[in-house]
Each structure stands twice: as structure tokens, then as C-alpha cells.
């Protein structure tokens, strides 16, 4: 990953959680996609991507979320995304209608519980 964004992968619970802080754009979206796919294995029920700390996300970032959701679906795994309500990232998710394909929660606990 470039210095724009930082990843924190939490494997301590039943469901792996990846917290993305910083900015996501066309320069680091591919790296992020690879990192997300590496974080989850078929033993899990799914993956939570926490965007609460993400300050910027553009169409390349949206595209990667759709991609990851699709690849996980093939493996019978579910992707859930956490975005703070009223945040800029939440606006971007809404405009691009991500929630039609991916579960979007406003709290991390909700996302994790949904995958238990």
C-alpha cells in the first residue's frame, strides 16, 4: 500500500475485520483489493471492511468493493462495509448504490454480528 492509506487487519474475533484509514483512489485500489482478499479464508463466514476512518474514497474504491463482494460471493462468503452515517464516504456509497449488493452498516458491531 502507498502512504495514502493504512490497513489494520484484526483476526481476533470470529470474523476478520479490515480497518482502512486514509485515502483510497486509483493509485492504491489494486493493492487494497489484494490485501482484502488475503485477509479472509474459506473458514470464515465473511469479511468486514471498516471505512469509519477512511477520509476519501472515489470510483476506483467503489469498484474494488464491488469486485471484492463478487469474488467473495463466488466463495460463498459475505462482504459487509461499515461507514459512519452522514459521512462523505457514506454519501459516495449511497450515490453509487453499493448497498444493493453489499450490506452497509453504520456500526462495526452490527456488521460483525450480521456475520456470526
Amino acid at each position, binding site marked *: 500500500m*502507498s*502512504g*495514502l492509506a493504512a490497513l489494520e487487519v484484526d483476526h481476533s474475533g470470529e470474523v476478520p475485520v479490515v480497518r482502512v484509514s486514509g*485515502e483510497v*483512489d*486509483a*493509485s492504491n485500489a489494486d493493492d487494497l483489493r489484494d490485501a482484502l482478499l488475503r485477509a479472509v479464508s474459506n473458514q470464515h463466514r465473511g469479511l468486514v471492511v471498516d471505512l469509519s476512518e477512511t477520509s*476519501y474514497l*472515489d*470510483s*476506483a474504491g*467503489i*469498484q474494488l468493493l*464491488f469486485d471484492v463482494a463478487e469474488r467473495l460471493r463466488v466463495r460463498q462468503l459475505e462482504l459487509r462495509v461499515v461507514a459512519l452515517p452522514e459521512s*462523505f464516504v457514506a454519501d*459516495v456509497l449511497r*450515490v*453509487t448504490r453499493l448497498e444493493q449488493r453489499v450490506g452497509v452498516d453504520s456500526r462495526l458491531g452490527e456488521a460483525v454480528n450480521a456475520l456470526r
Partner: protein
Amino acid sequence: MNLPPGNRPDAASREPPLLAEGLQSVTEAALAHLDLDDLLSALLERIRGIMSVDAAAILLTDEDGEALVPRAVRGVDTIEEALGGVARIEFARQVATTGGAVGIEGLRGSSSDGLGTWVGEGGIRSLCGVPLVVEGRLVGVLQVATVARREFSAEDTLVLEALAERAAVAIDRARLHESEHAARSAAEMALQLENLQEVTESSLAYLDIDDLLGALLERITGILSADTAAILLTEEDGETLAPRALRGLDEELGEDFRVPVGIGFSGRVAATRGAVAIEDLDRTPIEVTNPLLLERRVRSVLGVPMVVEGRLIGVLYVGTALPRRFSASDAYLLQLVADRAALAIERDRLGEQDRIARTLQRSILPTEVPKIPGVAIAARYLPAATQAAVGGDWYDVIPLGDGKVGFAIGDVVGRGVQAAALMGQLRTALHAYAIEGGAPADIAARLARFTESLGEDAMATFVYAILDLDNGLLEFVNGGHPSPLLISPDSGPRHLDGASGPPLGVRIEVPFEPAETALPPGSMLFLYTDGLVERRGERLDDRDAALTSAAAAAPFDVDLLCDAVSDEMLEGAPTGDDVALLAVQNLGYHQDRLELTVPARVRELAAVRRSLRRWLLAAGATEDDVSAIVLACNEACANAIEHAYGPGDATFELHAGHRDGVVSVTVSDSGSWRASRGENRGRGMLLMRAFTDDLEIRSGETGTTVTIRRGLGERP
């Protein structure tokens, strides 16, 4: 090679850092090992590493002081091999007779060295030996050997001699210890060993300096059954001793008394640099000045000097209320404590100076550079990781009014507290002259006169530049400083040569010749100090080339540029010297417009977002407006980058303006527009439309232009 004693450079005056580290490690070995065999192997191991030799040997004089006997060898497999090579006795005799370093190279087949035919058995080709001498007395010979042919340089022998000096003292002490051991009963020996362990115990090293000194005094008073103990340190004048740590009776004295060096008991220890014992103070010819001793509450004293790197730093003594005869082993033990304490005090002192220099440096440099519309500025001060290498680099940003800004960077010759203080004076002087007004060359001339007025030792290099935001012209002077870089989106980085002038403090009548260059919108000026490009063991040309390519690869954003260059050149933190960086980007707006030329590559997206964000905030946009416009423009820029085919030198333009509460941004490239391809491109368009009031795309033969508009302020 055999250097006559008179021609040898003085080791102490020109110790290179590596030598200092080597000496430190040998001193530590000397302090850590009491058993002679352990000591010798520890010494040889370290010497082998420091000198980069294949084998090392120590021969010691026998009891009569006549014959030299091999006592310890490192780096050979058999005794025969040792005796035929690195531990060769005939050679050691020659070294002992010469009384100085002796080196021979290319041993194979040679018999002309006067040593007979002693070739090949050990497989070594070159040998160098130095005598081990304590107070004029030969205690042995240290020899090092290499398998490859090697000519031992003057520097090599200098290092070897300095190491031998430390080793000799330690060996002498350990031998004394050994002979005393032999004479003592088993019970006494066990006790003595326990005592020694108590003062050399490594856990003491984790204590802070005051606790360490206290603990050492406590232990030594206990071991020697003394009633008082004190550490007195020489003061800066070198003529008086002042108390640093006191235990027992001495604690009652308080810390106010001073003792002159040269007279009195402590003064005598300091002057002779040897152990001094007084059995009964009532019957001694030594004049007593210490108030405690004067009061006759102490009858017997034993004092030893504290010496670091050949410098006397103080005196350690113990005293008893009843008359007592101190033995040689008491003196030996006390000296061990003194060595330990001296080393700790010296380390602490170096650390303290380093802290002062760092604090001074930080307090003088601006913590935040001023915000100036039209330019983006980033500055970094990166202190050296090495202790006591800090100080003297500075940068400054000076708003001059009339759309002009001054930028300065400089580097004081020297390090530490003095350099940091001089830096503060020069920075203030330059700042003051700059706001008075005048061209860079005039300011440089005044600053040069100012520096000369500070004294002989004041020297510095610097660059001072004035940027005129109305026309993007940059005028600058350079006083012996590394050339700044100009990084343009069209043509990449180049060094700004052309300005010339002497460093500050060099008293020669050479005028400052200024130079002028354009800093067009989007371009960046990068100023730095030599710690960025100078690195031991690497050619300056290579480092300059590395800097140019790091700057070429960095995004067009001042913060990202500083980070990328320091990551690439310094792997995060400078080692040998501190570094100051100052990056300036002409954002192309003085009033209402932002004009950027941007290389067509995805890593520039973040840089464009930062520039645009700064400009929008300056134009009075709310956080919501900024996020929305930045996102829409980012999508337009991402399209422009995708349109750019072929080699990476293509660029696109971003122009932004605002009028009557409406911001409009145009992104134009020379590629051809491609209709939405798949969902992703569709999403980019979706976002542009959703976050703006108006979106216009024009595509023609010459390229594509995307214009977005958005009214500022609250939305329904």
C-alpha cells in the same frame, strides 16, 4: 612499515568516529572481565573485528620481564600455526626492541625481514605488531595478521596503538589481580570476587546516572568498610573539583565546597593521576584543604583518579574514621569503581549536550510554516540519529508583502550546542534583513558582514530566494550551499545552478551573483541541506542522481515530496548529519484562480486533491463543498490520466476559478474521450453529476475538456 615515534599523528586529536567506537568497546571489555584469560580473549575478539584482520595474538612478558610468551591467540587452528605466524616470538621481540609499531607485508618466501624463513605455515602474508606498555614498562606485544597481503597504513597503526594502550592497562591490572589471587586464601578470593562482581554487575547500567553513582559509592563503602566516599568532578576551568556524589560522613558537608586541583589530597590525586593513600592524616606532609578532612573526623583516605579518553574528569575517594592502611587490592577495586563511574558520567554528559542541542534546535525552528495564498509550503527538520551530531541546519519562510515570499535554508559548520546557537543568530539576522526589503544579493552581503562580526569560527552555507507570485519569477543567491532543485511537471527536476557566492564567514571579497528562473504554476522548488546527499562511502554524484530520480518520481505535492525524498534518500532518518528540507509549490493562484499542470499518472491524484482543497478553503468553500468538488474533479482527472497513452511524460491541465459564489473547474487533456465502459466508468460519471450542479464534457480532435460547476454554500 615503521613510523618514527616523532612523526606519528596524535591519536587523541584526530580520532575518527570508528576509532572512538572501537576504543569504547575495548574499554568495555576491560571493565567487564577480571580474569586474565577471559580479558585476553575478549580483547582479541574485539581487536580482530575493529582492525578487520584474520588473526590476533597477545604475547606477555614473563615474571622476570625478559622473555615474551604467547598467552592468547585468536583466528588460528593449531599452536604450530600460531607460533609460525601471528604469535611469532621473534617478531614480537623485534616490536619490543623497536618500541613502536612494526608492520611487514608479503611474507611469502621472504627471508630479508631478518626473521629467518618462517613463511607459509600459518598461511599469513602480512603482520603488524605494537608493544603493550604501561607507564613506560613493557608488559607484552599485540600482533595482528592477515591471510591476504595488506599494507598496514598509518591510520591502521594509529588505531592499533590506541587499542594497545587501553589493552595494556587492563592486562596489567588483571595480572596484578591474578598474582594477588595466587597469594590469597581461597576464602579471601571468593570474597574479593564477590565484591568485584558487586561493582561490575551489568544491571547497574540500567540505573540513571545519579542512582548509579549512589549505588557504586554505597557498594564500595560497604566492601572497603569505609565511613565515607565521594566523587568530585573537575569543573570547566580545570582548576577546581566540585562534589558530584557523596555518601557517609561526606554527605554532611553539603555540595557547596570546592577543592583546588594540585594541592590537598584530592588535588594531588588529580594532579598525579594515580592512587594516593594517606594512612594517618595527623601525620602527613600533604596539605589538607577538604573541610571534612580538616575537621579530623576522617583519619585515613584512599583516592583514585577518574579518567576518560586520557582526560581527567574527577577523583573518587573513600575515608575511614579510624586509622587504616589501604592495600593494593583496595586501590585496585576503587579504581575499578572509578572507571565505571567515569564512563557513566561521560556518557551522560554527551547525552545531555545532545539533548540541549536538540531542544535549542527545535525551539529556534518554526514549528509551522506560514500559510500564504498561492503557494504550498512544507518543511522538515530531521535530526541525526547519532548522538551529538545535531544542530545547525535551518529553514525559514518570510512573507514579504506585495505578493512576494522569501525562502531560506542554511547549514552551520560544526555540530552540537554551539552550532545550534549560531544557527539561531543567523536565522534571525537573515529574517530581519529580509523583511527590511532588498534583493537577495543585498541581503546576502549584509548577512555575510553580520557573520564575520560574530568571530573567526562562525561559518555557514545558505540559499535565499524570493518568489514573486504575480509573475512566478524566482530570484536567488547561493553561498556555498548545495544547489536547489526545480521540479517542473513538463520537464522533471533540474539543479538550479547559476547563482554563486562564498559561504558565510569566509573572509574573501567575492560578491554574491544572483540568478533568476521561472517557477511556473504547478512547479516546485526544493531546498535541502547536505546531510540529504552526503553519505559516507558513497559518491556525491551518485547521491545527486538518486535525489534527482527520487524527486522525479515524487507526486507534485510539497508534503508528499518531502516524505518521498526523505524515505528514498535516508530510509526514514538521517544517520551522520541532520537534514533540513523546504519544499515550495507555486499553486498558480494569487487571487481567484488555480492553474496546475499535472503529469498524467495515478499517484498525482492525491497531490491534485491537496492543491485543490487548499485553494477551495482559501476561496471560502465549506467542508461539504470542498469534499464534493474535490471528488468530482478527482474523477475528471482520473479520466484524463486514463486517456493518456504511451510514455509517462504526458500532462493534463486543471484550471479552477470562482465568481459570484460559483466554483468552476476545467480539466483538459490531449486524449480522446471514451464513452462509458462498463459500470466503473458509469460510476465516475454518476459521482461527478451527483456532487456538482453542472457537468460539461467536450471532446474534439485535440483532446477532451471536462468542466464542472458548483455553487458554494448551504444546500437544501
